[in-house]
Structure formats: C-alpha cells, structure tokens
C-alpha cells in the first residue's frame, strides 16, 4: 500500500460523507461561477465592445450621459476624417428594439462604413433604399433565422440579407441596417447621427497623444464631447462595476462558508481517527506525513467538488445569459477566469486545512499508548 492508496482508502471509507462534502463544495463553486460569470460577463461585454472593434475614441453630443439621447451632425464625420491623426471615422445610429420577449441592439451604419470590414458577413450588406437587415449569428441561431427570412421592425417587414459573425459580444445578437434607412425609420433628420466611432493612426494610440488629439477635436467642435473608448465604456458601466464588486464580496463569503463546512467535516474525520493517527506517529510516521495526507485528502475533495461545480456553473451561467431580457451579454470565459476559479478552489482547500491541521500538530502519540 502506497501513500496515495492509503489516502484513497481513507477518503472512500465514508463515501456518503465524501459525496455530501463534495456536493457542498460543488454548490459553492457553482454559485461563485454564476456570480462572477454574470458580473464579469456583463462588465467584459461593455469593456471589450470598443477594443474588439479597434475603436479608440467616441464622439457624441456635449454633456449627454445617455448616448441614446445624443444627436450630432453627420457632416462631422467627414470633418473629423480629415484630421491627419484619424485612420477611420464612422457615424452610427443606435437603438434597442423589442423582438418577441427579448430586447436587441439595433444599429444603423453608413453603407461605406469601415465597421462592416470588422464583421464577417455571409450573404450581402443591407442597402439604403430597401428594407434589408443583417443579423448576428447568435440571434439567427436562437431565433432559427436564415438568409431570405423576414423580420418585423418598426411595423415594417425587413428581409434578412446576411448573417454576420463578430468578436464584439454586444453585436452577436444585434441587427444592422443602413444608416439612411434607420434615420428614415426613426424620423430623424437625415443629417443627424447619434455618435462617431474613431480609429486613430498607430502613432496616436498612446494614451497621452490620444488625449491631446481628443482635446484638439473638442476645441475645433465645441458641440461635441470626445472621449477615449475605454474611458467611455467604463463610465457607462459604473453600475455594472459596483455590481461586480458586490459579486466579489458574495463569492468571498460563499467560499469562507464552504471552507468552514469542509473544515468541520475534516475535523470530524480527524477526531474519529485521532487514536489511529497517534498510533501512526508511534510506529514511525512523521507529523508532516499525516499533514500531507490530510492536505491531499482536502485537495482531492475540493477538486472533485470544484470540477463538478465548474461544469454546472458554466452551464448555468450560459443558460442565465441566454434567458436575459437584453440578449446581448455573453459569459466572459477565458484563461484568467478559469485561473480565478482554480484559485478559489485552492483557497477553499487551504482555509479548510488550517483548523484540522492544528489538531494533528498537537497530537501526542503517547495518548494512544496509555490505557484509557
């Protein structure tokens, strides 16, 4: 019998206790993933929506916090494009439309917009003089739509002429029509747009140089506010950031509760085996051998429970996102997120190891030799 088979034997001695302890950890990790997944997913969706599109700055009407109420002249697009610092500038209109039970982002892009180059469209692009729309692949999949189908928007039938793939989460369930058509739908003045997305040349991307350029724009056009895209996104996501902090706090409380539950289970297990462990010390085991066995037992329980929690957590969070009223947010799974969860599992193991390890450190082998 090796060290690991000794540990395995101990672990599975009370399989029902092992199972319930594991389930407790799995529920804790599932809860943590849902809380972190939702908050980071929503925050990440906002945060990366501009960076993924290579947009460096956003221009909108001065002193407007809500971007939907911003209105600026469409002529500004050409004027801003003329600045030597600018790579591309694209005017946009944006709205949120109700489709069945969900709400979807709805964009109006000029037919020659460089933004179209950033998405991979199967089919073709929408034309200004036709009721045509292209839809995000997530929208098409969820609603079982294909090219040639129709959608009712603003009480008009629009033909789906393309389905696009995008790396911007906000656009995965979006609908895009031509800017002119959207101005017509919303009864907007032909010259009015909501904002301008700017991509600057490489040499201007440094934050200090970008800021200088944006100040130059604001001086040239007093009716606008020009903001770095990351700052703009973060400002709009203030409430989300607050929610994210609350989620972190709840995860911390959950993990401490799970760790204490596991510690309680391990203390019970150690106290049950106290005399046997003392006997092992008497026959030549070191305390560090027993501490190592205990820590490995805890790690195995944590990682078995954690793996189950990870799987259930991912599936649950994906499901919750798919049920969201505004179907634009996506879970923000990446290596860092997985590492955070592994870190949580390890933290649970370490916290729950501290209390029972104290019992082992204070274990006196002569307790088992004297006849009680």
């Amino acid at each position, binding site marked *: 019998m090796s060290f690991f088979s000794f540990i395995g034997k101990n672990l599975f*001695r009370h399989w029902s206790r092992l199972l319930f302890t594991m389930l407790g950890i799995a529920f804790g990790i599932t809860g943590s993933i849902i809380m972190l997944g939702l908050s980071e997913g929503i925050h990440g969706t906002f945060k990366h929506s501009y960076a993924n599109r290579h947009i460096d700055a956003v221009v909108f009407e001065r002193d407007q916090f809500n971007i939907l109420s911003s209105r600026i002249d469409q002529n500004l697009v050409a004027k801003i494009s003329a600045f030597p610092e600018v790579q591309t500038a694209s005017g946009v209109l944006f709205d949120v439309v109700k489709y069945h039970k969900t709400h979807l982002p709805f964009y109006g892009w000029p037919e020659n917009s460089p933004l179209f180059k950033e998405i991979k469209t199967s089919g073709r692009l929408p034309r200004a003089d036709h009721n045509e729309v292209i839809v995000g692949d997530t929208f098409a999949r969820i609603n079982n739509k294909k090219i040639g189908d129709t959608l009712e928007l603003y009480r008009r039938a629009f033909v789906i002429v393309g389905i696009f793939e995008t790396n911007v989460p906000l656009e995965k369930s979006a609908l895009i029509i031509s800017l002119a058509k959207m101005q017509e739908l919303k009864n907007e003045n032909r010259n009015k747009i909501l904002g301008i997305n700017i991509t600057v040349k490489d040499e201007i991307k440094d934050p200090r140089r970008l800021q200088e350029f944006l100040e130059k724009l604001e001086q040239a056009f007093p009716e606008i506010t020009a903001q770095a895209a990351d700052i703009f996104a973060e400002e709009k996501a203030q409430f989300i950031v607050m929610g994210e902090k609350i989620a972190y706090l709840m995860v911390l409380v959950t993990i401490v509760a799970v760790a204490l539950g596991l510690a309680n289970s391990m203390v019970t297990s150690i106290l049950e085996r106290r005399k*046997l462990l003392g006997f092992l010390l008497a026959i030549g085991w070191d305390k560090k051998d027993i501490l190592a066995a205990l820590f490995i037992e805890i790690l195995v329980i944590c990682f078995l429970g954690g793996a189950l929690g990870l799987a259930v957590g991912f599936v649950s969070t994906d499901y919750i996102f798919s049920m969201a009223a505004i179907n634009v947010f996506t879970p923000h799974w990446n290596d860092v997120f997985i590492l955070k969860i592994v870190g949580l599992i390890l933290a649970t193991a370490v916290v729950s190891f501290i209390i029972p390890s104290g019992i082992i450190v204070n274990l006196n082998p002569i307790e088992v030799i004297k006849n009680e």
Partner: protein
Amino acid sequence: MSETGPALIRTEAVSKIFPQTSAHALEDVSLSIAAGEFVVVRGPSGSGKSTLLNILAGLIPATSGTVYFQGVPFSRLRNKARFRRENIGFVFQDFYLYPGFTVAENIVLPLANRLFAPRRALRKAQDLLAYLGMEKKIRQNVNTLSSGERQRVCIARAMLSDPPLILADEPTGCLDTANTDRILTLLQDINKNKGAAILMVTHDDHVAARAQRQIVIVDGKIHYS
C-alpha cells in the same frame, strides 16, 4: 539486573516527572534488556510501567538519566520516528487496526507513508501471515476478524521491519484464555526463532510467568528485577 547478553536497550538512572503532577512517574530507573531477551514489566496501576515503555520507545523524553539503544544514547538520534520505524515493533491491547482496510494493508501500514509501496513489504506481509497461520485472510477486511486474529495481525505489523525490539503493552488484555495462550506462544516463538527481544507490560501473573525475566515497578521505582 540479570540480563543474558550484550544490552540492546539500557537505561541509566532515568527519572520522569510530569509537569502536571510534579510527582516522580519514574525515579532513578536503571535496567538493561539484552538482544533476544523476553522480559515482562509488572506492577500495579499507575506504577510507571507505561511511562517506562514510552521512554524506551523514544515517545517521551526522560527528565533525567540516559537511554541507550545498541550503545547509542537517545540524545544522539536525529530522527526518532525513523528510529522507531526501523527498530521497534509495537503491540497494544487495543489493536489500533485501520477499520475498512484489509489485513495486508494494516500490516504494511508502518511503510505506507512512502510514495511508492515497497514490493518487499507485501511479500513480507504474506510471509508473516503464513508464519501466523493466517495466509488465507490476507485480503480480508480486519473488521471481520476475531479478537485473537486481530492481535495476530498486530503482531505481524510489529514484525514488518524485523525490529530487534518488540514493545507489547498488555497485548492479551482483551483476549480470552485460549487466545491469550496462543498469542503468548506466538510471542515466545518470535522471541526464540526470530531473535527479537520482547518487553511486555502485563498485570497477569500467568502471562508474566511465560517470560524469561520479570521487572516489577512500584511507585516509579524498580522493586525487583
């Protein structure tokens, strides 16, 4: 003292005072046990028998005096756990068998703190069980064994590393007469044929009579040796 050969383990003026009581649990105890000797320690409850056993095993230090094992003072032993693993076999009244483990797993327990189980340990366990007449029970759960069989497994476990010294604390305390006789015969056989010295604590005169020599302790002092 009347040991029969060179000392395997020896104490020189060993005393033990527990801080909780301030009384002498052992006082000026000098004794010697030769290799291959079978010695019984007798005495009333609280006389210091178990304390003596603990000190000889290196589980607790003496307050004063010195213990020598094969001529080496305990103070020079760097790793007492390793010393016990390699030189001392323990047999207790309460068995201390791991419930749910098989007979073989319990026998190799002293070496189960190694990452890879030595193959020779399992072979040795098989040999020991054959010697004890329990070879058919090697894969049996210890929970299913009788008291006599459990104590034989404990003896096999104590002999795993062929220790020169076996310390037995009331090994027959919870056995019936037939099993007591069987265990004592086994210990005598091990002493005679395997050459291990045995130091056994007992209350029982009949058990004590099976040893080559008796040490009687009263109030922490050797009364008779």
